[in-house]
Structure formats: C-alpha cells, structure tokens
C-alpha cells in the first residue's frame, strides 16, 4: 500500500485503453511473427493427423507422453484466473485488481489450448467423439460414464464456459467505456458486446452480484477440473506411481503454483510492453510472490507426502519405479531440475524483499517455476509407463520427437498470439477495477501518522 498513488480517471482511461485506441508499434510485427509460428504449428499437426502417431516418439509401453504432459500443464496454468479473480475477490484482497483480467484471460486461452492436446493425442481427432457421445445404441456401445476420461471433457468445458462468462461479465463496464470512445465498426462491435451498459446503479449491482455468484460457483469447478485430470492417473492401480490418494489436491496446488507464476510472467510483460508502471506496481509483484511462497511450500509438502507414501508400502515395483524416477539416467537429471526450478531457486529468490520488488527477477523466477512444473507432470506420467515390467515383451524407451517438441513450442506461441489479439480489442487491465480501487482507498489519521485504509462493508 505504501507505493500506491492517486491516479485520475482521465489518465486511467487514456493509458489503459492505449492498446485499443492507439495500437503500439511493436504489436503488428509481433503478432505476425507469432501468427507464422502458429500457422507452421497447425501444418505440423496436419502432418501428424495425415501420417499417424508414428511421427511421434510414442511407442509400447509409453502411450502417454509429451502431449498428455502438455495437456496437464495447460490445465494447470488455467487455474490462474479463478485463483486470482475468484478467491482473491471473495477474500477481498485489494492488490488483485490490476491482475484479474489478464489472469481470467490466461484461464480461457490455456483451457482452449489444453483441449487441443487430447485431440492431437487421439491421432484421429474425429474419433474422440466415440469417447464422449453414444454412437451405437444397437450394440450397447456407450461411453463409459464412470471413467474420469469422460469427466475430463465435461469438467473442462464447464470450466471454459464459466470462465468465459466470468471474463465477459467483468468486461461489460469496459466495453461500455470503449463504445463511448470509438467510431465506425468498432463502435458497432462494442455497442453489441456491451449489452446496453450505461453504468446505472442497477447494472452495477447486477454486475457485482453476478461476479460474486460466479466466483462462488466457479470455485468447485476450479477444484474439480484438475482433480479429475489427476484421477485420469490415480484410479489406475496398474501403473506404479499413479495410484495415490493425494493426487487430487497435489495436482490442484501444483496448478495454482504454476498458474499464479504464469500470471507473474504475464504481468511483467504487460508492464514492459504497454508501459503500465502506474498500474502494475512492484507492490503487486510483492503480494503475488508472498502468495506464491505459501502455495509453493504447500505444494512441496504434498510432493514430500506423495514420495514418502509411495515407498511406505515397500512394494518392490513401486520402489523400482522411484529408483528409476529419482536415481537413474536421464530421469535423475530431470528430477533434480524439477526440484531446483520448481521450488529451490524461485522460493529462495522470493524470500528476499529486493527480489519481490524487482520485476525482471520476478519474471525469470516465474519462468523457472513453469519449467519445473512441466517437468513434474512429465515425471509423473512417463516413468511409470516407461519402467520395464514383467509382462511387457516389446519395449522401447520414450524420446519425444522433434515434431512433439515443436507442437509444445507452438502451444506457447498460440496462447501468446491469442492474448495479443485480444489486447488489440479489449483492455488487459480492467478500468473499472482500477477506478473502484481508487474510490475504496482512503487513509485514517492515528496520532501524527496517516495510515492507508480501505473501505469495507460494515458488520
């Protein structure tokens, strides 16, 4: 709160709408470059669909590899939005305000991206319909509704719908603002999208109540999505390392760790690219870093429990898997990298106040987290399948092909591309939240000292 400054509403409008009313020079070349990468990525996916999954490194017994890892990774990133927007809104954390829109957006785009990976992984994407919809009543061939593989698309599409609605409701006041400042086709677009927003008390009340209700409704979905993803693995006793009761909360807390770190990465980029120093301030990074220390330490505790109870039973196959996962080449290098980048480096850095207030260091530390978290998913999924077991007669180790790596890179470019495209038409920092924060800020005098204060609903 010490760094907050009074910003008048005209300045807020001018600076936060600069992406829509006055496109920055770097925007077009960046979007074109990303667009080319995205197009090449789609071409590669086309090749894979045409040639089949043989172009990937997948082979017996490793059927789930880089695509499923990346699917879990993006579902994890999608937890940023609800964590920041819903949980922090319900807990009335003031510092969330400039971050909410970007976090919600990240949720929507990362979910869209996550959904594409099981489609690619299916090899023949159109056949995925057999998993979801009944297709042969006569022979009684139905999707197995008791399988988490069916719950997955249901949960993710519900989460996507809810998140989109959440994002849209929060956008309404800003759309009204843009409508009043644009002409021509843009004005027509914003007029339609703003749904007649005039900012009267009734509309504000509905918008606020809608936001709170959606926050509360989205929370169970938020928890269920990654829990269901974890159950894709945990309900399978046949694969060592997967059948653990801790997987659901372990995946959820890991997702929050990963998602909130991604928000930090994005905030740093937004501050640099759009020069929003007045709005995205070191205090916001400081608050997020404090939150991340707690989340990361909780996540580490879950990691510890997962490992200790894996070996607790002293079952030979489980011990063999852990031996492979932690001590054998090349998994040992991946494991060490995962622990160092997922926890030791970032949390070690965040414990220093000077780092928490340094945007560049926060940016790099948040990138480290997501490298570590991607590796964590890879280490959960692949070694369990790759370990040679007694009844596997055809056996090969898994090495992702160049095409798989490119598609992983493509997914990063794709999400960035969508974000930049969005930023051309809609503000990335919610104007009304910023103004509300100004209104709700005050100070009280205690003796000779003026203490920053915030307005809260009375008892």
């Amino acid at each position, binding site marked *: *709160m*010490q760094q907050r400054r009074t910003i008048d509403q005209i300045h807020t409008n001018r600076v936060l709408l600069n992406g829509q009313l006055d496109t920055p020079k770097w925007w077009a070349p960046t979007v074109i470059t990303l667009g080319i990468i995205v197009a090449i990525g789609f071409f590669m996916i086309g090749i894979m669909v045409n040639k089949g999954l043989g172009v990937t490194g997948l082979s017996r017994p490793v059927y789930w590899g880089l695509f499923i890892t990346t699917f879990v990774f993006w579902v994890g990133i999608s937890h940023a939005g609800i964590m920041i927007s819903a949980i922090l809104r319900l807990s009335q954390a003031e510092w969330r305000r400039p971050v909410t829109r970007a976090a919600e957006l990240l949720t929507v785009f990362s979910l869209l991206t996550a959904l594409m990976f099981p489609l690619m992984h299916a090899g023949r994407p159109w056949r995925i319909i057999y998993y979801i919809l009944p297709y042969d009543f006569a022979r009684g061939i139905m999707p197995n509704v008791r399988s988490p593989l069916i719950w997955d698309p249901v949960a993710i599409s519900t989460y996507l719908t809810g998140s989109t609605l959440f994002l849209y409701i929060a956008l309404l006041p800003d759309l009204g603002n843009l409508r009043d400042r644009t002409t021509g086709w843009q004005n027509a677009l914003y007029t339609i999208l703003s749904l007649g927003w005039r900012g009267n008390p009734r509309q504000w009340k509905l918008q606020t109540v809608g936001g709170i209700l959606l926050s509360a409704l989205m929370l169970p979905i938020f*928890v269920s999505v990654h*829990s269901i993803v974890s*159950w894709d693995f*945990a*309900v399978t*006793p046949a694969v060592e390392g997967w*059948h*653990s*009761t*801790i*997987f*659901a*909360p372990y995946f959820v807390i890991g997702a929050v760790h990963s998602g909130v770190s991604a928000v930090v990465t994005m905030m740093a980029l937004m501050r640099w690219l759009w020069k929003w120093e007045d709005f995205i301030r070191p205090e916001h990074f400081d608050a997020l870093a404090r939150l991340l220390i707690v989340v990361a330490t909780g996540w580490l*505790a*879950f990691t510890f*429990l*997962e490992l*200790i*109870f*894996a*070996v*607790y*039973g*002293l079952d030979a196959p489980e011990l063999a898997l852990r031996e492979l996962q932690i001590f054998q080449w090349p998994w040992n290098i991946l494991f060490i990298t995962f622990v160092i980048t997922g926890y030791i480096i970032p949390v070690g850095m965040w414990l220093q106040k000077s780092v928490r207030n340094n945007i560049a260091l926060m940016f790099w530390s948040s990138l480290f987290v997501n490298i570590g978290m991607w590796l964590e998913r890879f280490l959960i999924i692949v070694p369990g399948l790759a370990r040679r077991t007694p009844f596997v007669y055809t056996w090969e180790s898994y090495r992702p092909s160049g095409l798989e790596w490119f598609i992983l890179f493509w997914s990063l470019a794709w999400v960035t591309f969508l974000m930049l495209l969005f930023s051309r038409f809609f503000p990335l920092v919610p104007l009304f939240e910023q103004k509300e924060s100004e*209104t*709700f*800020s*005050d*100070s*009280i005098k*205690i003796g000779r000292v003026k*203490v*920053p*204060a*915030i*307005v*809260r*609903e*009375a*008892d």
Partner: protein
Amino acid sequence: MASEAIHSGAQTDAHSGTHEEAHHELPARVEPDVITSELVASTDSNSTGVRNWMWILGIVTLVGIGVGFAKLLIEWGDQSEWGYTAAMVAFLFSVFGGAPLVAIAPTLAKANWVRPVARFAALCSLASIVCTIWMIPLILNLPMLVVDGARRRSIWFEGPDVSPHMWALVSMITLITAALGLIYAYALPDFAAMRDHSTGWKQRFGSWMARGWIGTTIQWRTLRLRIGMMGTLYFFTFVFVHFIISTDFAMSLVPGWRDAIFPMYHAISSIQAGLAVTVLGLWAARRYMGMDKYLHLDQFWSIGRLMFAFTLLWGYFFISAFIVYWYGRSGSDKMWIDYLILGPYFWVFILGVLFIWFTPWWWLIWNRVRRSYNGTAIGAGLILFGVFLDRVRLYVAAWAVPEDRIHERFLTEYPSAVFPDVMDLFIMVGALAGCVFVVLAATRVLPILSIWDVQQFNLLYRPVNYMKTKVSLIGKPD
C-alpha cells in the same frame, strides 16, 4: 473518498434491536483506558462461577488421570483397550492444536478482524500439554518397529526401533515450546499492561515477563517479527505433529492402509475443529465474561466463512481418498473401504459425515447464519462433534487390530467393533476437562482478549458514512 466518521454515541447496543438491526450494528468504541483496566481486571479470579468451574474441571481432570493410571496397570500391553484414549488424544490435539492457526494465518495476512480473537486462539495451544501427558500411555502401548523379528511398515524405514515413540514425544514437546513462544510473543505488551495496571504478584509477574517493554518503535517492530517467526514455527510443527500422529498412531497399525492424503486430511480437519473451538470460546467469552464490547459480528462472520470453507475442504479431501480406493479395487483398497467405512464403524462413519460435513455445510452456507453469534456457535458445535466421531472411527479401528497381524499385506478379517468401557469414559471426560482447565487457568493470568490487539483494532477501525450507507474504514499499516 468522501466519508464521514460516525459518532460513537449513535451506535446500538449489541443485545438490543431486531435481527436486521443487529446485522448493521457497528462496534462500540471503548476508550483505551477502559479497555486496559477492564481486560486486566478480567484476569482476577474473584468470580465465583469461574472459580467453581475451575475446581470442578480440576477434580475431573485428576480423576481422569487416576483412572488412566489404573488402566495402565490393569491393561498394559493390550493395544485394543487404548483405542478410545488414542481417539480422544487425537481429537483434543486436533481441536486445541488447530486453534492457534486461526490467529496465525489471518495475522500474517494482516486481517484486522482477527485482532480480538488472536489471544484466545493462541491460548488454546496450551492444551497440548494435556495431550502430551495423555500420549504417554499410548506411547507405552504402541508396538515397536520390529515385531516378531520383522520390521513393520512405517514411515521410519531404517530408523531405530523406538522411532515412532521417540518422535511423537519430541514433536509434541517442540509444539508446546512453539506454543509457549507464540503466546509469549503475543503477550509482551499485555504483560507490560499488567505491570502498570495491577498490584501484588501479578504486578511483579508482569514486570518480570514484560522484559522492560515500554512500546518503542523498535520494540513494536521486533514484536511483529517475533509473532511472524513463532507463528511460522508453530505452523510447521503443527503439520509435522499431524504427520506423526496420523501415521504412527493410526495408519501404520492397520496392515494395507496406505493413504498419502491422510496426514493432510488430519491437519485440515484439525484446523476446522480449531476454528470451531475458537467460535465456541468467543461465544462463551461474550456471554459469560462480559466481552461483548470487544467481540463483534465481524469476528464471528469471518470465522464462520472460514469454517464453511474448511467444511467443504474436508469433503474434498475425503472424496479424493475415497474415489481412488473405490476405483482401485485392489485388496488393500477394498480393505480400506470395508474396514474403515462399511465395517464395524459404519454408523460412526455416517454420523461423523453428517456432523463434520453435511450438516455444517447446509447450516453455514447461509450468510444469515454466519452473521449471527448463535448460528456460528451451533455450526461450531456440530463440527466438533463430527470431528470427535471421525477420530473415534479412525483410531479405535486402528488400535483394534491385533499386533500379531501387523505384518499381513492387508487385513482380510476385520476385528469387531470396540465399545468404550467405564474407564474409557472417565479418561475421555478427564482429558477434555484437563484441556478446558488449562485454557481457563491461562485466562486467569492473561486476559482472554489481547489488550494491545483490541486497542489496535479500535485504532485501525473507523465506521464511516458513505453515500446512503454505513461502511467500515480499515487501516492497513505496513
């Protein structure tokens, strides 16, 4: 912001007015001198009610300890006879050990509402002393790591034979030390107030404990740092103790029970119970100790929300384990369901779920309930009963497994239900009375509400008029 401070005289009495008015009451502003003198005076044990209660609780505690000693002599070595004692210790540790987290977490998050609550929540941790005393017979009856020449499953893979016994004691003593450190860190300014506003031994004691506290800027800064450090230490020790108790005193006694989420489940339900006991304590302080001036709806409302959140979290943690066992269908998976859910304690399980989760969920979901003193207290009572049943189900079942079957891959024949005998009842009531006695005795030394926290709450809280409504202005100093 255009706001206007409301004159304190315009406020309504907490007990008067309709329900709707009560929801909009604003905390009464009490003069700082009055706060100090009233809260210091509240530690005097002149009240006959408190004195009588302390006598009754003390006697019941001693009777419980006596019966426990007799039981130790009579039923030494019969593990199944100690299930209810184990359940009660786990329950009491869960309840009173979890309470300080109600103070720690919101304090670290700089929430203002928690200030009047922090002292009582921290004092609850003293009950760990009683839990440690009652843990001694359990430690004496806990099987060694090597049974019949073979090492049993435990988290102490290569550790010495007495690792579970030793670490249980060490961790509990560490927790007590952390609790005392936390209470002392919180209480330093109050000891100074005791020094300046009381007479006799209390003045001498306050003077000695205050260590020259005069409230300089550096002293305040150090105080905040100390609270943060002791709070963090308490939290980590708390999680570690739950890890030890849940695995060594429950899970490892049942062959085939391998549940990675169980320590966290144990800790989560402990925080839920800690919130509940804090609500009940505050409710009693308002009703019987005249603290209604200092404890407002804000505190009950905030804890009510947390209780609701942790109630849902209990459901989530339970289902996370259950679904994995349900789908797994391996021998040990089925054992977990058949013995701990559907087996001899099925009705305890059903009642436990009703009280720990289902009823509080549908009770606390209503804002109207959470914004009332009695509503949150009823919710708290339900939760405490539910947690008690949950611990009975888990610990009595675990201690009922005969030691000669500890090496089985998983249980195939389930021991029948164990019911408490008269000695168990005496022990359970005695242990509970001991915990309440310790907390009540502590309030005879330190005020049940922290004086400086209440002062700061009042300083940083301003009711103001905003447009047509009334809002609170809350100071957020760094």
